[in-house]
């Protein structure tokens, strides 16, 4: 079965995070990622999906297969209409020692991806995009 | 379409002379290098000439991908490969073909007196031989690339074997510089072997690693941490004095890592860790 080139999923409940993980895994396998790379991108997706749910109040995850300059990649975009992140710099610091929460997810996902971008407006919402190349 | 070329006839009629002239011109340059025996060179020329004649006699002098050119292409590929292995340069390999132009053009000038016809035939001959020359160079390149790739694979295998030293003890002697890509492979392979063999101790020996930069040290540390997370311990052995200095100078923190100067020391420690010991037999 060939995967669609892109897919958008809702993240509204805890079980949706698992579904996102599984979808990301399928896309990664289809793209021919090795096991370690698969694990990294799925773990990053898990972190970001959780943030979208717990901090963003729910939102969407969009998975896209990329083909650029002869290499293949997977782009994941997580969007919510939540409260937004007031201090991005602080949030991106390795916050795991303080007990996790938002900090861990963002900085962790950033380390596991090749490309990372985040936009957030207080009161409007947040969009995080990560890309992992084969 | 195109008037029949006179080249096939000329190759047929003057084959012996062409061979001699061509071989002579090659022999002088090739003899200097001493990389190929004269008899072998003559044989290559003779074979080339024969297959060239057979191919042009089919009438197609422009499309070298056609079936009638296959044998000549194969011969040229084989000659180029052999040249690359013998140590000839790509130019020297191409000259094998290009040097045939002179004898051929001489014959064409002798036999053809119509200027238009002569220039047409010279053009045909030159484009034909150019294509063959390029083919030779490409085959040479490919042969070189194949050698490099094979050597890289062998080196990769040779330099990152995971060895079982004892029940529960693995050793990974690393030779050469660790770049990012290689370290990933090495790391994964070691961790996989740890799971497969159920070994609780892995000795990473870096005696054969000439230099360690921050990135390499980080990779090593990551491997140690990952193994630890899985339930195995790593001992790093073979740290040379220069590397020890570099590590301190770079500010890399090795306090959580077990290190031993030699593989032997590391092995003894590992044995203790798995509950074994080596004893010497009481003699007579």
């Amino acid at each position, binding site marked *: 079965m060939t995967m669609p080139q892109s897919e958008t999923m809702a993240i509204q409940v805890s079980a949706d995070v*698992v579904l996102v993980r599984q979808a990301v895994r399928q896309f990664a396998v289809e793209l021919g990622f090795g096991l370690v790379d698969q*694990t990294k991108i*799925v773990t990053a997706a898990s972190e970001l999906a959780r943030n979208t749910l717990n901090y963003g109040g729910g939102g969407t995850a969009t998975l896209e297969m990329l083909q650029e300059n002869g290499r293949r990649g997977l782009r994941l975009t997580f969007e919510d209409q939540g409260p937004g992140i007031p201090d991005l710099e602080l949030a991106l610091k390795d916050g*795991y020692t303080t007990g996790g929460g938002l900090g861990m997810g963002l900085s962790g996902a950033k380390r596991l991806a090749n490309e990372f971008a985040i936009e957030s407006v207080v009161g409007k919402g947040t969009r995080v995009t990560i890309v992992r190349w084969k | 379409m195109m008037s029949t070329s006179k080249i096939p006839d000329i190759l047929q009629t003057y084959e012996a002379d062409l061979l001699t002239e061509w071989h002579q011109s090659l022999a002088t340059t090739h003899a200097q290098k001493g990389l190929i025996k004269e008899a072998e060179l003559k044989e290559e020329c003779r074979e080339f000439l024969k297959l060239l004649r057979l191919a042009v006699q089919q009438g197609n002098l422009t499309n070298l991908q056609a079936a009638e050119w296959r044998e000549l292409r194969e011969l040229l590929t084989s000659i180029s490969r052999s040249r690359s292995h013998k140590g000839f340069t790509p130019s020297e390999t191409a000259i094998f073909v290009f040097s045939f132009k002179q004898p051929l053009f001489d014959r064409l000038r002798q036999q053809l007196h119509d200027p238009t016809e002569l220039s047409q035939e010279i053009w045909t001959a030159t484009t034909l031989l150019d294509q063959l020359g390029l083919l030779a160079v490409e085959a040479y390149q490919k042969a070189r690339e194949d050698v490099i790739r094979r050597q890289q694979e062998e080196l990769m295998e040779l330099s990152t074997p995971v060895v079982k030293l004892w029940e529960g003890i693995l050793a990974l002697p690393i030779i050469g510089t660790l770049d990012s890509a290689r370290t990933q492979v090495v790391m994964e392979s070691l961790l996989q072997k740890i799971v497969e063999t159920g070994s609780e101790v892995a000795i990473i020996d870096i005696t054969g690693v000439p230099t360690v930069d921050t990135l390499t040290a980080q990779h090593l540390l990551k491997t140690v941490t990952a193994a*630890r*997370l899985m339930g195995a311990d790593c001992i790093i052995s073979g740290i040379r004095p220069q590397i020890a200095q570099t590590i301190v100078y770079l500010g890399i923190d090795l306090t959580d890592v077990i290190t031993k100067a030699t593989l032997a020391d590391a092995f003894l420690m590992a044995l203790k860790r798995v509950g074994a010991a080596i004893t010497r037999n009481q003699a007579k």
Partner: protein
Amino acid sequence: MERIPILQMGDFLLVTIQVDMHDRLAMTLQDDLTNRITQTHAQGVLIDISALEIVDSFIGRILGNIAKMSRVLDAETVVVGMQPAVAITLVELGLSLTGVRTALNVEKGMALLQAALHATATSSFTATEGLSNDDAAV
């Protein structure tokens, strides 16, 4: 509600995680384990994660919590069977799982628990505690 089964084996509790857990399931496991330890006076907990293909920061925290809580209840926890890809990813994530003892498989994990049971507090030789540079005592 679905829960992860907890088996009792003598003085120890054995948990095998075989599903991709969502957060609530993981938190339920944490509660269930804490209750079971108290009920059974278990001396040790063995968590088998050999089927887990993903361990993210949340699961990592849960494992850490379980270890801490068990210790408070006088039981040791050992996590066994971490897959190499998971270990590599955790390192990349920066999760160190300090305080969580690990072993390669159930057999070794059990041995660890037994040893901890019969040993004094200082002679542990688990990976995550970090060995000193002297030869490790067995």
